[in-house]
C-alpha cells in the first residue's frame, strides 16, 4: 500500500499527483471528476485508513442537513406566499426557529466529533490535575483517539457550508459527489486552505481540461514550495528540535535565535505547503484561495492575521466574530457603552468579547494545550491593546509631526510586529506553557553572546554553511515577496522572457532543491507542521 507522509513525500509528488494529472488529462470531463474524487479518497485512505469513515460521515451528514435546511426554507417560502402580511413575521420566526434547531444539531454533531477526538484527552488530563490539586482521590481515564488527517480543516469547511446554506448565501447541493469532492479534494484535505463551497465546489465539478499555462505555472509554484520546505524549513528543523527539546541547556541568545528560526520554519513550512497545494490545484484549473500574503510585511498584529492563514482568519471572522458581535446582547451592550465611553471605546467592548471568543477558538484550534490557549490570548491581548491605543498613537504622532507613512516609521512597525509574532511563536512551539515562560525569561536573564564568539552556536544542529544557505534562500524569498507586494506576477514575468532565461530560472530552482535540500543521509523527513493541527 502507498504510504503518504505528506505532500512532500515521493508518493505524492512522483506517483499520486502525476498519475492523477495524466488520467485527468486524457479522460473526458465527466470522468475527470471521478478521477479527482477517487484520488482524493485514495490519498485520505492511504494516510488515515479506516478513519476515512469520519470524512464520509461528515460529507453525508452535511449533504443531508443541507437538503433538510433547504426543505425548511422552501416550505417557509411557500407558506409566506399564501400568508397575509400580518402573519408573516410569526411564520418567519417559526421557520427560523426550526432552522436554528437544525443548525444547532449540525454544529453540535460536527464540532462535537472534532472536540471529542481532539480535546477529550486534554480535558481529562486537566480534570485529573484539578482532582490532584483538590486532593480528591479520583482519576479520570485519559482516552486516546486516532485523528483522521485534516479533521480540523474539513470540519470547518463542513460547518461553513451549512451556515452558508442556512444564511441562503448558497443553495443546498443536491449532488452528493460534488459535495464529496469539495470536502475531500486531495491537495487541500491535509492542511487547507479552508475553502468555501461558493469558491471551489463548482470549479472542481466543472473539471476543466488542463491548460498549458496552468500546468507550467502550477509546477513552478510546486517547486517554489518544495524549495521553501526542503531548503529552509527542514534544514532549520534539527536546531529547533534540539533547543526546544532541552531549552535549559541553552542561553538566552541561542533561544532568541531559535525563536526567530522557528518562526521562519513555521512560515516556510506552511506557506511552502500552500504553494504546493495551490500549485497542484492550479494544474487542474482550480483556483484555491490564498492562505498567505507576505505576513511579515505587516505593520500591526491585526494586519498580520489578515495576511497569515487567511482562510482560517476569515472563517473565524465570518462564523464567530460577526455573528457574536451582531448578536442582540452585544448590540445592546455596544449601544449602552457608546453612551458612556464614546464612539471609539464603546464598540470596543462588545468587539473585545467577540474577539476573545475568536482567539480562544483560534488558540485551541491549533491544538489541545494550555500553551496554545496562551498563544491565542497573547494575540487577543495584542490586537485589543492595538485597538485601544490607536487613537492615542495617531494623536501623539500628529503632535510630534511624524509621518506615519514614511519609510522608517513603516519599517519600525514591521520590525515591531515581527518581534511580537516571534515571541508568540516561542510559546506556540514550546513544549508546555511553563517551558515557554522559562525560555522567554531566559532571553532577558541569561543573555550572552559567548556561543556566537566561541562558535558553539554552529554545533547545535546547524553549522555555518546551513545558516548561510538559509540566509541566501531567505533573501531570494524576500525579493520575490517584494515583487509580489508590488503586484508583479513573477511567473507571468518569467513566462514572457526568452526561453534561455526561463530555463535558467527553472534549472536554478530545481538544482537548488537537489543540492541544498535537507534530504538523504543525516536528515529525517519532517512532516508538515500544520498537518498535525
Amino acid at each position: 500500500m502507498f504510504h503518504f507522509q505528506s505532500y512532500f513525500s515521493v508518493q505524492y509528488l512522483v506517483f499520486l499527483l502525476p498519475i492523477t494529472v495524466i488520467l485527468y488529462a486524457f479522460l473526458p470531463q465527466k470522468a475527470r471528476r471521478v478521477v479527482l474524487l477517487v484520488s482524493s479518497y485514495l490519498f485520505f485512505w492511504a494516510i488515515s485508513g479506516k478513519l476515512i469513515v469520519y470524512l464520509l460521515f461528515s460529507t453525508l451528514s452535511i449533504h443531508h442537513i443541507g437538503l433538510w435546511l433547504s426543505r425548511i426554507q422552501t416550505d417557509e417560502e411557500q407558506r409566506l406566499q399564501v400568508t397575509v402580511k400580518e402573519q408573516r413575521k410569526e411564520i418567519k420566526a417559526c421557520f427560523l426557529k426550526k432552522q436554528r434547531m437544525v443548525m444547532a444539531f449540525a454544529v453540535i454533531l460536527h464540532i462535537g466529533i472534532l472536540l471529542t477526538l481532539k480535546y477529550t484527552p486534554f480535558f481529562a488530563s486537566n480534570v485529573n490535575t484539578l482532582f490532584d490539586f483538590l486532593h480528591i482521590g479520583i482519576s479520570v481515564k485519559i482516552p486516546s483517539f486516532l485523528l483522521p488527517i485534516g479533521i480540523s480543516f474539513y470540519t470547518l469547511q463542513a460547518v461553513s457550508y451549512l451556515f452558508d446554506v442556512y444564511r441562503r448565501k448558497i443553495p443546498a447541493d443536491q449532488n452528493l459527489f460534488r459535495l464529496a469532492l469539495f470536502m475531500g479534494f486531495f491537495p487541500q484535505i491535509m492542511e487547507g486552505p479552508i475553502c468555501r463551497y461558493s469558491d471551489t465546489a463548482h470549479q472542481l465539478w466543472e473539471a476543466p481540461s488542463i491548460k498549458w499555462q496552468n500546468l507550467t505555472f502550477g509546477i513552478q509554484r510546486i517547486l517554489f514550495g518544495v524549495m521553501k520546505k526542503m531548503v529552509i524549513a527542514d534544514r532549520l528543523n534539527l536546531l529547533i528540535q534540539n533547543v526546544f527539546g532541552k531549552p535549559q541547556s541553552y542561553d538566552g541568545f541561542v533561544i532568541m535565535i531559535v525563536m526567530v528560526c522557528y518562526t521562519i520554519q513555521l512560515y516556510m513550512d506552511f506557506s511552502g505547503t500552500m504553494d504546493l497545494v495551490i500549485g497542484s490545484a492550479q494544474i487542474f484549473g482550480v483556483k484555491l484561495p490564498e492562505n498567505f500574503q507576505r505576513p511579515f510585511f505587516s505593520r500591526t498584529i491585526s494586519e498580520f492575521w489578515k495576511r497569515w492563514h487567511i482562510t482560517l482568519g476569515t472563517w473565524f471572522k465570518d462564523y464567530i466574530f460577526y455573528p457574536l458581535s451582531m448578536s442582540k446582547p452585544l448590540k445592546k451592550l455596544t449601544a449602552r457603552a457608546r453612551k458612556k465611553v464614546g464612539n471609539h471605546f464603546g464598540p470596543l467592548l462588545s468587539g473585545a468579547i467577540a474577539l476573545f471568543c475568536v482567539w480562544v477558538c483560534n488558540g485551541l484550534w491549533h491544538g489541545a494545550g494550555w500553551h496554545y490557549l496562551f498563544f491565542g490570548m497573547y494575540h487577543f491581548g495584542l490586537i485589543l491593546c492595538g485597538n485601544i491605543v490607536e487613537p492615542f498613537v495617531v494623536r501623539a504622532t500628529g503632535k510630534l509631526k511624524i509621518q506615519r507613512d514614511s519609510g522608517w516609521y513603516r519599517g519600525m512597525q514591521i520590525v515591531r510586529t515581527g518581534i511580537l509574532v516571534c515571541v508568540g511563536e516561542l510559546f506556540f512551539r514550546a513544549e508546555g506553557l511553563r517551558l515557554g515562560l522559562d525560555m522567554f525569561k531566559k532571553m532577558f536573564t541569561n543573555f550572552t553572546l559567548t556561543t556566537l564568539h566561541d562558535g558553539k552556536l554552529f554545533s547545535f544542529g546547524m553549522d555555518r554553511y546551513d545558516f548561510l544557505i538559509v540566509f541566501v534562500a531567505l533573501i531570494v524569498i524576500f525579493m520575490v515577496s517584494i515583487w509580489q507586494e508590488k503586484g508583479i506576477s513573477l511567473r507571468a514575468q518569467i513566462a514572457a522572457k526568452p526561453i534561455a532565461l526561463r530555463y535558467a530560472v527553472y534549472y536554478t530552482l530545481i538544482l537548488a532543491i537537489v543540492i541544498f535540500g535537507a534530504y538523504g543521509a543525516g536528515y529525517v523527513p519532517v512532516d508538515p507542521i500544520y498537518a498535525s493541527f
Partner: protein
Amino acid sequence: MVYVKRGISVLTFFMGLTIFLVMLSFLFVPKNNMTEFGMEEVTANGILGEKENTIDVIVLGDSESYTSISPMHIFKETGYTAYVCGTSGQQLSYTKTMLHRAFEKQSPKIVIMETNAIFRKVSTVKAIVAKLSDFFSVFQYHNRWKSLNLNDIKGKVKFTWVNDFKGYQYRDGVSSGMDKDYMKPTDEVAGIPLLNLNYIDKIKSFCDENGAQLVFLSTPSTKNWNYSRHNAIRQLADELSCEYVDLNLLPAEVPINWNRDTYDKGDHLNYSGAVKVTNFLLKYLGKTQLLTDHRSDPAYEKWHDSLKKYEADIAEKLK
C-alpha cells in the same frame, strides 16, 4: 504544431537538466573513500581501496553483519579474503548499491547476505533516491556542497584507503541477553515487504550474472531473530535456490553464551561472540571448496600488514 513545439521544448528542458545533473554528479562524487573526501559509510566502503580482484567473499547486511564476522580472523586461519560491506540499519536499496560497488573492482566467489536487513522495510524515498543515485550521484552526495574544493573540480576519483579490520567493527562489553525461547518452533512465516523481495531478486540475479554464489546467513540475535523469520528466509532461499545457514539453530556449532557473548542484551554479538561465528564461517567457507589460501601469495602482502595491525589493535582492546 503547438503540441510538437511544446513536446520539443519539454524534451530540450529535460535533456538540459540531465546534462546539469551529470555534471554535478562528477563534481559531487567523493574523490577518495575517506570521510574527509565526503565518502559515506567509510568502513564498508573501504573495499573500494582494496587491490583489484583480491576479495573472495563479501558480506552484506546491517549491524548484525559487521559485529558478527571478522574477515581478518578468517584470513589468519584460512587465507581466504573477505570484506564486510555491512552498514548500520542497512536497507536493501543500499545493500544493492554496495554489491554493485564491490563488484566494480572485485570478483568475489561468494556473497553472504546477513538476513536481518531483509526484513527492514525499504522506504520508497530511499529506493527512489538510490535509483536516481545509480545515474546521478549528486542525489546521494548533494550535502557535500559544504566541503567542495578545487580538487573536486579537477581531481580524478581514486580510492586509496583500506580498512585493516576489513569492515568488521569491534564491540566489547557484556550485557546479558538470555532468552531461551527466542527460537521456539512455529509454522508462522514472517512477512517480507514486496519491495524488499524485489531487491533480493535483483541481488540474486546480479550474483548469478557475475558467477558468485549467494548465501543467506542468519547470525545469532535473540532480539532480532525468531522462528517465523527463519521460516520466511528458508522459503525465500528455496525459491531462489540459495544456501541458507541459520546460526540461531546451530548451538552446537556456534555455542553462543548469551551471558557473555553479547554487549547489548542479545541484539548484537561482542568480540567473543564474533569469534565463534567467524570460526563457524571459516569452516563453512572451506567446505565450499571455492576459495584458495592466499597467505603465501605475495600479491596479498598487504593483508599480512593489516593482520598485524588488526591483532595488535584487538590485543590492545582486550587488555
